[in-house]
């Protein structure tokens, strides 16, 4: 079982290439918003979703994607999928 910190670290590694606000990335918390805070282009959100699927060997459905706007929601979705 992965700890919360390990999960955040893995997610940070995935989103790093798409981040456009480095200061917000350095200050990243669970409440950080991918688009509003990190200024990630919406065209890249799907790349992040595919990278998450590959990293954790999970499949994300449309309903999962719909909520995937913050670090917290990404963590909840990944954790839920890993339990299944």
């Amino acid at each position, binding site marked *: 079982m992965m700890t919360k910190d390990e999960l955040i670290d893995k997610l940070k590694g995935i989103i790093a290439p798409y981040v456009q*606000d480095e200061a917000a990335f350095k200050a990243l918390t669970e409440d950080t918003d991918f688009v509003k805070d990190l200024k990630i282009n919406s*065209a890249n959100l799907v*790349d992040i979703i595919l990278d998450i699927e590959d990293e954790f060997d999970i499949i994300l459905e449309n309903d999962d994607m*719909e909520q995937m706007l913050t670090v917290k929601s990404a963590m909840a979705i990944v954790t839920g999928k890993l339990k299944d």
Partner: protein
Amino acid sequence: MVGNDIVDLQEARQSRWEDPRFLDKLFTVEEQQYIKATRDSFTAIWHLWSMKEAAYKLHVQQYPCRFYAPKAFVCHCESSPHRVHYGAFVYYTTTKITAHYILSEARCQTAKMSSVCLPLVRTAHEFQSQKTRRQLLDEVAKIYGFTSTGLTLKTTELGVPKLYYNAKPLDIGVSLTHHGRYGAYAIS
């Protein structure tokens, strides 16, 4: 009201657009058939994507909320005018495709494209955002005869841009977009 979206094709090439799962996450079966049937699938993908994104940006101005459901915004390009359906909502789109970028604009009624594209020399997000905003404000000031010092642009919690003149909200719909080396603004 207006929503717009620009895609820098050079940036778009860096994405995972060739992965079949990429198509499946963003596009309906019919849209995927349309993409595969065209000679230039790359351009078709980003054409449809920019239509969906422009329509989403228009939709959230009317019904404030935030979500990521590109597949639920369904493109219809088989006849003119092009449309994007989202549930019972229908938005009309126009698109400009060049060798460097694709720019789409969505409206509630059919209309000619009003978006103005500007090349951006620096790709830093902050610079692009400021530059596109500045150009939009200058244009609004010119059209309506406002002094540019009294004119401000604020973005709501949900990411919707709103114009103010001397702190009073203005009833002018605007949309801003930037990606890679290009920005664009629209005024309705």
